[in-house]
């Protein structure tokens, strides 16, 4: 091995021994110096709490201020009670619904910006679309409340058009509307990154070979951008699964999600930290699996840029 690379050893030998040692030292210190600040941060604020929660989740019925009982899997068995299972199912359905809505709304927009809009307008259009992300999610939720409340702008508009008024606030539709609105920009950004990379000559080639625009879309555009579609879908799914503000403010009591359930266990009336921890671990596991899928099958570049 060393004989095959003769160029580097003589170069190192020509340097004084102390300088060589110093180089080795800096090469060792450099990564440590760069990684320690964020490493400590992550360790204290992410890894340690997660481990703590993992421990608590195995202590059935742990409540703050009470002496801890024995370890057991009682918390995890409690999750499968119908009342809790329903909440989990609702959260997953919200996340899936939000992902599908974002995909259906976001793909045409991303396609239009990436393929059809004049190239000099593209950046401006993207910024316009991402603009809502720069306001606080709380603010956006309150904005939707003013729109959706019984005497809000939506119902004024509907009554002006002589259509029946809608009672969407504190119901499921409001949760879908609010969440889809929140995550649509992410979806558009990721899909745009993927569609922008799509070789437009492939679309011409498909058309040349006899494919109608619809056939071109399903047989070339979608398969070619599948990694981006997977990335956008999984990212929106993951974030909407853990969404707390929108279901809380727009969904009302009938729309309890896992996030709200966990909140209740820690800070609400029940204060069952053990049960809350087991829910947290369940969610971390689910999201980790989704992220693993994202990294394996998704278009990592566009997901990260998004």
């Amino acid at each position, binding site marked *: 091995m060393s004989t095959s690379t003769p160029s580097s050893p003589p170069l190192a030998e020509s340097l004084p021994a102390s300088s060589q040692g110093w180089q080795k030292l800096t090469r060792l210190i450099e990564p440590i110096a760069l990684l320690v600040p964020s490493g400590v941060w992550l360790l204290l604020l992410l890894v340690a709490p997660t481990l703590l929660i993992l421990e608590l989740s195995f202590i059935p019925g742990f409540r703050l201020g009470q002496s801890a009982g024995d370890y057991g899997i009682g918390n995890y068995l409690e999750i499968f009670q119908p009342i809790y299972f329903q909440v989990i199912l609702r959260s997953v359905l919200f996340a899936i619904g939000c992902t599908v809505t974002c995909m259906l709304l976001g793909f045409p927009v991303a396609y239009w910006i990436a393929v059809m809009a004049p190239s000099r307008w593209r950046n401006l259009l993207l910024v316009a679309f991402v603009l809502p992300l720069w306001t606080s999610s709380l603010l956006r939720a309150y904005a939707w409340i003013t729109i959706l409340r019984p005497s809000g702008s939506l119902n004024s508009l509907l009554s002006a058009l002589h259509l029946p008024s809608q009672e969407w606030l504190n119901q499921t539709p409001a949760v879908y509307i609010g969440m889809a609105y929140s995550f649509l920009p992410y979806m558009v950004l990721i899909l745009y990154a993927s569609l922008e990379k799509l070789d437009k000559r492939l679309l011409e*080639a498909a*058309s*040349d*070979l006899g494919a109608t625009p619809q056939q071109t879309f399903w*047989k070339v555009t979608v*398969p*070619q951008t599948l990694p981006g579609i997977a990335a956008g879908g999984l990212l929106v799914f993951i974030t909407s699964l853990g969404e707390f503000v929108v279901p809380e403010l727009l969904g009302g009591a009938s729309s309890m999600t896992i996030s709200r359930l966990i909140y209740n266990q820690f800070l609400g009336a029940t204060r069952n930290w053990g049960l809350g921890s087991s829910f947290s671990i369940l969610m971390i596991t689910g999201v980790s699996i989704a992220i693993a899928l994202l990294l394996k099958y998704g278009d990592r570049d566009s997901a990260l840029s998004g």
Partner: protein
Amino acid sequence: MSQTVIRDYSVSGTDTRLDVELRKVFKVYDGETAVRGIDLDIHQGEFFSILGPSGCGKTTTLRMIAGFEDPSGGEVMIRGKSMLGVPPYKRPVNTVFQSYALFGHLTVWDNVAFSLRLKSCGNTELRERVGDALQLVKMSDFARRFPAQLSGGQQQRVALARALVNHPTVLLLDEPLGALDLKLRKEMQVELSNLHHELGLTFVMVTHDQEEALSLSDRIAVMNNGKIEQIGTPSEIYEHPKTAFVADFIGDTNLLKGQIESIYAETLQIVTDSGLHIVAKPKTLWNGADSSSSNSSSSNSSSSNLSGSHASEAFVSIRPEKVHLELSPPADSISSRNCYAGKLKHVMYLGTHVSYQVELATGDRIAVLQPNRSSLMDLGTSVYVYWAAEDCLALAPQE
């Protein structure tokens, strides 16, 4: 196998029926005119090339035939049917793209089968036709591979098979060999030519490579600046260019600018701007400014009204291989008419040929291409260059 069975009826018996017709076709992009009113007749079964420098509008022309662009004015017809407003997927043409544009998510087999699957062609027929197309381009062994796993030449073959499997009326080729290295390009030229003979299809190829166009085509249209300069067989284009641009673009030439001094029958006396007197006897008639006056008054043997308002400008073109280079002036008086003394300024050894640059007393530089027969001449040698008046073309200046 494909090379042995050559049914050679396409070249000699080029069908007089037309496959592609362009009538006064214009294309304007954002106020810039890419194609300025061109007319083209492409016969059935012919290998037709559109040749020109980049930006001359040749690719735009091809794209209008394929249907990716709509002409801003004029008419595009395929087999006598107007193609205006007909989308690409309804036109009886298929294209081999410059960068191949293969579908990366499909295997070679599925790429070739793409168009047949759209037409919901039967399973046995599909298998047969895709198999035949792959065999035609010698890619049968690569059917299960993905495009990314193929070399440039192999991708080119797949692109050809994909375009041919559909049995198009016209095969369009957009700089098909541009991305290949020289050796591979030569190989693919031979194969393209064989394929054309074998299939008897109409090929329309766009290229900027004049050698490729000359060696492959039945006819060539030379384009410049959105216009067709000349349409003709390769030898017509090379031997009898009609404009200075064509003479300069196709092969190397010595192009000298001058004024016509006199026209006597088919003989032109031209004085170049540097003061060289040249006699030209082009076989084609002078097509310049006062051709009408010299043609109509052929009985009138005196030189026409050149002393008048504008003395007629012209370019003289002499191919380097038609120029003789000797140490002494030629003995016979006829060839001595275009004979000039000069000094060797540049010698380039090309293997089979030697390229010389001779500087005349007037300062003109004449390029000479000689077969590598005798010993090389040294730089600075005093030499004589001469050429026959018949090898000298007089060309009208560009508008």
